[in-house]
C-alpha cells in the first residue's frame, strides 16, 4: 500500500538546504552500501554510474535480492539481465518490474529453464507475438499463464480454448474481453463450473442467460442474476426463485432496479434482507423497516448504510449491541453532535470509531486523547484533526502502535515526524521513511538506518532531491 507508493515515487523533501548529486555519490564511494547505491540508481537516470552499479551488486546474494525486488531500478535489472545465472533469470522472469529489453533477452533462451516459460507467459512485458512460441513448450503452467495474459491474441486464445483443458478454460472464462466466438468455444469445451463463470461475461448471449434461469444448479441462477443484460422475464423469474441464495444474488446485483425489490423487505431469509440493507439506493422507509427487524447483523448493515437518515442513526446509536453503535460511529452521515455522545461510550471500540472521525468537535477529540485504550489512542493519533502538539506527545507514547499511528497521520508535520525516524521499532521508521513531509535532517538520519529497505528509500529520496536542483 503506502510502502509501494513511496518506493516508486521517491518523493523529494522540503526544507531550505540542498544536496548535490556528486556529494551523494562521493559519500557512498567513501562508505559503500549496496542498498543506498540502488536507491540512488532508482532516484534519477543521472545516477546511472558504473561505480554505483558495481556497488549495488557486490555479490550473488545481493544480485538475487534485487532481481526479485519489484522496486529495483531498471538499470540494475538490465545489468542483472546480463548475468548467466539461472536463479537470477528465474527471478527476473517473475519480476513485474523487469524491463522489456531484459524480457526480450530472456525470451531468446526461455527453453533453457523449464520454470522460466510460465513466468514469461504471465509477464505483462512479454509481447503478444512471443506468447505462441512460449506455449509451444508443452507445459500446462505456461498455457494457463498465457490464457490469463492481458495481451494474448484472439487466435491464441481460441486455440487454447480448443484444447479443452479445464485449468486453462477456467482462466479464459474469467477474462473481461471474451469475444462471442471465444465464449462459444469455452462454453462448448467447459464443464458446468466454467459455464457458470461465462454467465457473468458481458458477451454472454441472452438465450444462455434465459436458459440459466431454469438451470437446476443454484450457482447458474445466481451467476445469471447479476448479469447487466438480464432479460426482464428472466429477472422476474429469479426474483421469485425458491432458493434464498438466488434471491440474495438478485438483491445484491446493482443492475437490479431497486423498485423490483420491495417484497424482499419481508423476505423470510435474513440473507436476502441483509443483501437488501447493503444497497445504497434504498428509500429511507425501507431502511427503517429493515432496522426494526430482529438480528444485530441487519442493524449493523443499516447503520453502515450512508443513506441511512439521521433520525434512524440516532435510534441505532442507542442499540444494546456495541457493534451497531460502532457502525453508527463510522457512518459518514452521523453528526458531530452524535459522535460526541458515542465518544463517551462504555465500549472502547465505539469510542475508537468516534476518535477516528475528522469531523469530531475539538473538545471531544482532546478528551479522547487522554483515553487509556490503545485502539482509541491509535485512532486519535491517526486523526488528521488532532492538533500538532497532541501528536507530538503521542509520538512519544510507550505503545509502539500509537507511535506508528502518528507516523501514518496524513497531517503530521515534519517536526512531529522527526523523532519517529529514530524510533526503536523498525516498522515505525519504515513508515516515516515513506512520508512526503520530512526534513532533510530526518532523511539524512534515515539514510544511515540499520534496515536496508529504509536506507534504500532514504537514498532514493535524497537522490531525487539532489537531481531536482
Amino acid at each position: 500500500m503506502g510502502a509501494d507508493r513511496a518506493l516508486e515515487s521517491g518523493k523529494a523533501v522540503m526544507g531550505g538546504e540542498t544536496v548535490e548529486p556528486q556529494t551523494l555519490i562521493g559519500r557512498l564511494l567513501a562508505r559503500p552500501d549496496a542498498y543506498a547505491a540502488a536507491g540512488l540508481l532508482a532516484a534519477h537516470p543521472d545516477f546511472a554510474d558504473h561505480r554505483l552499479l558495481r556497488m549495488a551488486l557486490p555479490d550473488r546474494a545481493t544480485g538475487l535480492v534485487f532481481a526479485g525486488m519489484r522496486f529495483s531500478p531498471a538499470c540494475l535489472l538490465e545489468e542483472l539481465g546480463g548475468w548467466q545465472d539461472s536463479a537470477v533469470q528465474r527471478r527476473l522472469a517473475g519480476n513485474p518490474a523487469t524491463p522489456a529489453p531484459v524480457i526480450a533477452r530472456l525470451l531468446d533462451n526461455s527453453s533453457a529453464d523449464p520454470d522460466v516459460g510460465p513466468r514469461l507467459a504471465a509477464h505483462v512485458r512479454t509481447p503478444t507475438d512471443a506468447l505462441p512460441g512460449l506455449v509451444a513448450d508443452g507445459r500446462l503452467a505456461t498455457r494457463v499463464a498465457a490464457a490469463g495474459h492481458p495481451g494474448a491474441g484472439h487466435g491464441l486464445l481460441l486455440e487454447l480454448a480448443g484444447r479443452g483443458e479445464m485449468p486453462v478454460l477456467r482462466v479464459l472464462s474469467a477474462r473481461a474481453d471474451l469475444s462471442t466466438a471465444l465464449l462459444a468455444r469455452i462454453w462448448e469445451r467447459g464443464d458446468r463450473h466454467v459455464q457458470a463463470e461465462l454467465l457473468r461475461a458481458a458477451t454472454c448471449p441472452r438465450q444462455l442467460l434465459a436458459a440459466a434461469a431454469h438451470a437446476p444448479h443454484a450457482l447458474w441462477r445466481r451467476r445469471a442474476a447479476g448479469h447487466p443484460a438480464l432479460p426482464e422475464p428472466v429477472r422476474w423469474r429469479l426474483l421469485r426463485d425458491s432458493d434464498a441464495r438466488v434471491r440474495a444474488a438478485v438483491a445484491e446485483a446493482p443492475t437490479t432496479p431497486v423498485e423490483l425489490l420491495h417484497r424482499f423487505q419481508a423476505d423470510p431469509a435474513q440473507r436476502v434482507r441483509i443483501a437488501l440493507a447493503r444497497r445504497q439506493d434504498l428509500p429511507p422507509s425501507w431502511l427503517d423497516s429493515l432496522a426494526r427487524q430482529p438480528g444485530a447483523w441487519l442493524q449493523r448493515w443499516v447503520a453502515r448504510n450512508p443513506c441511512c437518515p439521521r433520525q434512524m442513526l440516532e435510534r441505532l446509536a442507542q442499540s444494546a449491541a456495541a457493534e451497531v453503535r460502532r457502525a453508527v460511529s463510522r457512518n459518514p452521515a452521523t453528526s458531530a453532535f452524535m459522535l460526541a455522545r458515542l465518544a463517551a461510550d462504555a465500549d472502547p471500540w465505539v469510542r475508537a470509531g468516534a476518535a477516528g472521525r475528522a469531523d469530531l468537535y475539538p473538545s471531544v477529540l482532546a478528551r479522547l486523547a487522554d483515553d487509556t485504550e490503545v485502539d482509541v489512542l491509535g485512532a486519535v493519533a491517526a486523526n488528521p484533526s488532532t492538533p500538532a502538539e497532541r501528536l507530538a506527545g503521542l509520538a512519544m507514547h510507550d505503545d509502539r502502535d500509537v507511535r506508528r499511528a502518528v507516523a501514518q497521520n496524513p497531517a503530521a508535520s515534519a517536526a512531529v515526524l522527526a523523532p519517529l525516524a529514530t524510533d526503536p521499532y523498525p516498522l515505525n521508521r519504515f513508515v516515516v521513511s515513506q512520508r512526503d513531509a520530512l526534513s532533510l535532517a530526518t532523511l539524512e538520519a534515515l539514510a544511515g538506518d540499520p534496515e536496508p529497505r529504509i536506507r534504500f528509500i532514504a537514498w532514493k529520496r535524497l537522490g531525487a532531491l539532489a537531481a531536482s536542483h
Partner: protein
Amino acid sequence: MAQGILVIAEQRRGVLSPVTQELIGAARAIKNDVGGAVSVAIIARDPASLAEGARLDGVDEVLLLPVTADEFQPDLHVAAAMQAVSERDPSLILAPHSVDGWGYAAALAVQADAGFATDVFAIQVDAGEVTAVRGAYGERAHALLEFPGRDRVLLALRPSAFPAAEGAADSTVTELSVPETAARSRHLEFIDPPSEGGVDIPGAEFILSIGRGVGEEDNVEEFAELAEQMQAVLGCSRPIADAGWLPKARQVGYSGKTASSCKLYLALGISGSVQHLAGMKHVENIIAVNSDANAGIFNVARYGVVGDMFEVSKELRQHFE
C-alpha cells in the same frame, strides 16, 4: 550388539497421549527391517494402569517403569528410560517430538550416547541402517539424516506424521525397577487455557483473518459476518488494525497476538509479511486466499487459492448458511 526398538510412551493426567500409538505404529512398520523386539516403556507413578493401551499390534513387550511423580518430570523420565535402555539394549529409541519430548529427548540422547534427530516424519531402514527425514527451513527443504558410527539412534517423531497402531496384542508386561533419582523440579498444577470473554485470538481454534485485500473499511463487515457464520474468530493483519478497521486485539503477528491454539487459519487477502507470519505460521492447517500467486503467505500455507477474496467469500457463505 544393540537390537530392537524401544518406544517411550507419553502420558499426561493418567492417560496415554495419542502420539504413543503413532510411535508404536512407526515401530511396527520398520520392526522387521530393524530386527529384534518392540518394547514400549511406560513411565508413570502407576504404569500398570496404562499398560493395556500400549498392548497394540506389533508390541512384543510393555515395560512398566514406576516413578515417584504423577506428571512428566525430566530427571525421573530420563532415569527410567535409561533403565529400559540398559536392560533391553535397543538399536532404535522412538520418542515423541511433543512438548514433553522437547523436555527430555535431547537429555536421553546425550546420556544414552545415541545418534539423535528430532521432528522426524519418515524413517527408512536399509540393510539395517536407519536414516531419518525431517524438515528444514520452515519445511522449504527436507533433510535426510544418517547416523554414521552409531549402534543406537534416538528419533523424536513428529506427531500426526505416522499412522497410529491399532488392534490389541498379547504383549507381555514386565515391570522394571527404576534407580532412585532426585527429581529437581516438581509439578504444582495444570492450568487449563483460560476462556476469556471478548476477542480471544490466542485461544481460538479456528481463525478467519483478513488483510489488505479487503480494500476498505465497510468491506470488513462482510468478513466479520462470514467469520460468525463459519464459527471462526475474526483476525486481521497489521495494516487492518493500523487503519483502525479492527481492534488491536484481533491483530495476528509480531506486534499483535499469536494464534497459539489455532487448528485452522483461513487467511483472506493477506500477503504474508514476516510480521504477520510470526503469529500464525506454526498453525497446522493454513488456507490462504490471495490474488497474487507470488504472495509470501503461500509459502507457509497448507492449502492455497489464487483468487479474489470477495468472490471466494461470497461462495463460501453459501456453505455456511
